[in-house]
């Protein structure tokens, strides 16, 4: 009877040996694969649930915070008290979808480094600080609110910059979304709904969408004319009812389908003030593709703009594109055809004029500090590039001031404040125009430069113009800013 018992025992021991082989396979050989699997809750938890630093506005408003979970003090819950106001800037740190925007870019500073990874341990041995750092933005919370409210429910963007430092004071994109929803239990459904929403609430229109700049691009063309010596504010141009495009039967008309001045001749100054397409189209043809292209690039077109969050490059087509297509050049000179700009880029154009021709590198983060309040890293203003000479900037500044004083941009007028600006109404070929206003104030010593874009005319629809829709929004923002920073 012992023989079968021994066999049974032997069978069980073979089975136990298999268990040991299997557990060795699971824990050592296949171990890393299971350990690092994206669906492993430990992997997910290592990304979330940890304490992260604060994100503050320049005026110390809390934009992102970690609070201890009431049920489990070792876990932290991330929240965004300002919700959709900062969604595209701050982003989120989500269990399901990882990090986004500043939460992603500054993840290494924001996260607690007490993960006991080898590099963290080394860093600790070398005296590194494992605690989460906080970051402070250049955004002025009050201004951000004003801009957000001024834009209202219209799809579009506002970008406001302090011209002499490049600090972004406000950056609004609408429609927006509540990043807190990405942290909740409904995150997967919420994201799906947002992804298929035709209004594209997830898109950061300030930096990640480009639009034809329309007449705001005339600032660039005027700069090219003055810098090249081809024209000045008082240079006279023919004033036809319509400009025939070379080699075609197509014509360019002014917005109101009228002549610009008296019908015979008109100064550049008047043409700029009244935003006459005929004059700028012929000026563009006169300057040529090379000059326009160089000037556009001096303002930041076709260049990667260094910024904390990704920026889509604004485009002015290469000169070769116009070699056999002068009508395209004429249309590009009025900011149509294939010229494309982000609202950030157009804000930089305005800031260049405001800052004696110099573009400062735009920045969103002013400093990084540790939990004791000690500054770990400070973002000093840096020069990006010179767009135009100080004298050219001064001339264009004067032209822009006239636009607001008695031109297309009168609705941006702020009592007792010298405001400079340029409107734009960009035809899209389909649907209502995208309308723009770029400008700065106060002219004598600008503290703010901005670009306002309202997509597809906003609530005004087909009848929208930069002067009627975008300028009033800019007016509210500039008025608030100058008043509170008088």
């Amino acid at each position: 009877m012992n023989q079968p018992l021994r066999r049974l025992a032997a069978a069980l021991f073979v089975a136990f040996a298999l268990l040991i082989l299997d557990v060795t396979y699971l824990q050592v050989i296949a171990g890393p694969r299971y350990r690092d699997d994206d669906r492993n809750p430990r992997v997910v938890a290592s990304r979330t649930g940890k304490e992260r630093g604060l994100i503050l506005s320049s005026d110390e408003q809390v934009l992102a915070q970690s609070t201890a979970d009431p049920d489990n003090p070792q876990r932290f819950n991330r929240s965004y008290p300002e919700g959709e106001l900062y969604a595209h800037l701050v982003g989120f740190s989500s269990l399901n979808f990882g990090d986004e925007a500043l939460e992603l870019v500054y993840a290494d500073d924001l996260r607690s480094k007490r993960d006991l990874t080898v590099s963290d341990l080394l860093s600790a041995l070398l005296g590194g600080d494992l605690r989460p750092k906080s970051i402070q933005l250049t955004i002025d919370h009050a201004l951000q609110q004003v801009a957000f409210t001024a834009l209202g429910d219209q799809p579009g963007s506002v970008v406001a910059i302090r011209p002499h430092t490049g600090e972004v004071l406000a950056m609004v994109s609408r429609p927006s979304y509540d990043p807190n929803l990405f942290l909740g239990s409904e995150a997967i459904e919420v994201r799906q709904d947002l992804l298929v929403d035709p209004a594209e609430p997830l898109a950061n229109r300030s930096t990640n969408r480009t639009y034809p700049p329309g007449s705001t691009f005339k600032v660039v063309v005027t700069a090219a004319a003055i810098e090249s010596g081809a024209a000045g504010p008082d240079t006279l141009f023919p004033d036809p009812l319509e400009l025939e495009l070379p080699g075609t039967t197509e014509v360019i008309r002014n917005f109101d389908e009228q002549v610009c001045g008296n019908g015979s001749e008109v100064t550049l100054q008047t043409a700029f003030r009244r935003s006459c397409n005929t004059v700028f189209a012929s000026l563009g043809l006169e300057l040529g593709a090379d000059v326009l292209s160089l000037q556009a690039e001096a303002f930041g077109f076709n260049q990667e703009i260094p910024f904390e969050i990704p920026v889509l490059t604004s485009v002015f087509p290469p000169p070769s594109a116009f070699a056999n297509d002068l009508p395209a050049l004429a249309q590009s000179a009025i900011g149509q055809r294939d010229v494309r700009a982000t609202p950030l880029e157009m804000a930089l154009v305005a800031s260049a004029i405001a800052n004696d021709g110099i573009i400062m590198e735009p920045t969103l983060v002013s400093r990084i500090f540790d939990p004791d309040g000690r500054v770990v890293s400070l973002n000093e203003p840096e020069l990006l590039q010179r767009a135009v000479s100080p004298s050219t900037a001064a001339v264009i500044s004067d032209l822009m001031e006239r636009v607001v004083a008695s031109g297309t941009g009168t609705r941006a007028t702020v009592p007792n404040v010298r405001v400079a600006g340029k409107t734009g109404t960009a035809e899209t070929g389909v649907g209502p125009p995208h309308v723009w206003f770029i400008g700065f104030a106060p002219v004598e010593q600008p503290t703010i430069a901005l670009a306002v874009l309202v997509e597809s005319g906003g609530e005004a629809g087909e009848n929208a113009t930069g002067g009627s829709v975008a300028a009033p929004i800019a007016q509210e923002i500039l008025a608030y800013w100058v008043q509170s920073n008088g």
Partner: protein
Amino acid sequence: MTRNAEAALLVGAAAVAAFGVALVNLARGDGIDAQVALTFVVMLTSFGGFHLAVRQWSPEASPFLLPLAAIITAVGFVEVYRLDQGRASLQRWWLLIAALLAVALLFTVRQTGLAPLRRYRYVLLLAGLLLLLLPLLPTDWAFPLRGFEQNGSRLWIRLEIGPLRLQFQPGEIAKLILAAFLASYLSERQAVLAAHTRPLGRYRLPELRQLAPLVIAWAASFVVLVYQRDLGASLLLFALFIAMLYAATGRAVYLASGGVLFGAGAVIAWSSLSHVQRRVTAWLDPFADFIDTGYQIAQSLFAFGSGSLSGSGLGLGAPDRIPNATTDFIFAAVGEELGLAGSVGIIATFGLLVAVGFGISLRSRDTFRKLLAGGLAFVLGLQTFLILAGVMRLLPLTGITLPFMSYGGSSLVANFLLLALLARISHEERA
């Protein structure tokens, strides 16, 4: 090994449990509290009491049984404590109750030995079958003893008298009782069952009517499988039956026909029972249906993988992510927090315990005791293997408890009684 060495090892195991609880507390950020002392006292009381009873009434018993079981119990308790403190304090009560029942068993048989088990075998058979079928009692009748369903299996009975509410899985005890019946039945019929008289070509087969009990066992396990939807218990009972029949007769034909019956049963179960299909699907590829059927196994694999060689440390892993971590999947928690070192250690300790059981069986001269010890050792080993293989995706998951480790009173009581029986057998053989 002496009794005193055994006692020292038991103190060591109690210290391991207390130390583990202290580590869990520290990992949690709490201080060392009364839980540590309480765990030490309860472990010492239950295993110490068991030990004293063995000294008193079965002094010749093998000294290896208790220390091996105690160290497994200690590690299991620490993981239960780490996962669910409420369950851990219940588990402490169950430890005391289980030890008390084991002591009571040793006390009861101190004069008679295990002879009554042998004598009243049909009472045992009846009791065993009754216990097996008890969960099929209606859930809503007036009688305070009711069956009920949990996690899709109907394995439980609940006794409700006023505020008192006791839940129990009678199948765990039925396993032991049926092993005792089989040992008694087979030790008597051994000769007849082994005498193969019916010729078939070169082979000789047993008379057909001798196979009847085998078919009955097969049918009984199938009833358990279909009506109680308990894959594990069903398989365990059937395998126990076949193994003991084989041990008693030495006839491989029983193994072969058992294998055929098992195969047939498995195919029928797989093709017609959805809960069996789900288990097989999850086993073949847990990640194919990660959200639903594969979730639990996948979480188990994540835990083992995350544990790696040395584990996350007690209280520092995330085994709470595995559904049923305190019961069926307790070993995945060990794998995560104690790593390969801990998981291999536990498997090896189970192996040793099973080996001690088989050793007792092999050294027994009396057929009944030999078969009973062999059957108990086998069922302990097989149950351990089945649940571990399920948790590690070596086999499809069969929802049974891991002896001495899983949370649950029925399982602890049954396995403590199993220890007491083995201790008694080894005493009787040496005395």
